[in-house]
């Protein structure tokens, strides 16, 4: 038989219930994962079709011109933002599920967010550079 766990409570019943209940932010992460997924559906299909039909056999000049076209640049920026938002949200859930300690969980999530921000900004800079000059 497992040992019966015990807790000693010195707080009043009112003190114990205060601050519990909905944090009013619990579904935001989950919801945004679905929103970015739906945004990524047309964006990824557009990029896949472009990659196969245009970019696969484009010269440097043609590829640079393609990325710099206003519509393509805007869609690429949207693709980058939605992808890194979705990636960070997804990896966060994976870390939360498997991380053994609070420390590794916190460090892991912060590291994923930092990398997603930095690489996402780098990709944004690349697109803007090609679109503006």
């Amino acid at each position, binding site marked *: 038989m497992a040992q019966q766990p015990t807790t000693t409570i010195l707080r009043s019943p009112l003190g114990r219930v205060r601050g519990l209940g909905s944090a009013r932010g619990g579904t935001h992460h989950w919801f945004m994962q679905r929103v970015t997924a739906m945004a990524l559906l047309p964006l*990824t299909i557009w990029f*896949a079709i472009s990659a196969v039909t245009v970019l696969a056999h484009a010269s440097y000049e043609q590829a640079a011109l393609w990325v710099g076209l206003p519509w393509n640049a805007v869609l690429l920026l949207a693709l980058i933002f939605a992808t890194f938002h979705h990636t960070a949200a*997804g990896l966060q859930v994976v870390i939360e599920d498997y991380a053994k300690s609070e420390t590794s969980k916190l460090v892991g999530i912060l590291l994923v967010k930092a990398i997603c921000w930095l690489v996402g900004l780098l990709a944004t800079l690349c697109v803007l550079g090609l679109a503006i000059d």
Partner: protein
Amino acid sequence: MSSMQDSREAAMIGRRTDGTTVRRPLSPHLQVYDMLQMSSFSSILNRITGVVWSFGILLVVYWLLALALGPETYATARAAFAHPIGQLVLVGMTVAAWYHTLAGLRHINWDIGRGFSIPAMYRSGWAVFIGTAVLSIITWLPAIPGAVEFITAQINANL
């Protein structure tokens, strides 16, 4: 009671209606499941392909960076992607992308409250597997020399 080392310990302690604490029973772990059954296999594959694409997106950013840096770096990137290993990685990424996309559609269908029955779960699961194979082949068809010409010739001959 000693202090908790792991936050998951909190979920292990429940309360009876009379207020006394009780250690909750553990559910069976992974060994009791057939890991190749549709439900768990399609689920874990969705997570794996999602993690795979965390690295796939780095390849897209590498391509963008090479393009932004100029013709020399772009030529290097193109050579890397054209290398047999590069092509193999891209094929793998294509399969992972289509799987994660179709499995994501399956999840959105669940999120709006549809397709929860066991037969529907099997149907959508097979649709995702077959769809992944078909779309991956279609994506890489233009890369096979003469494949597109052959198919259009076949279509024209049969019209």
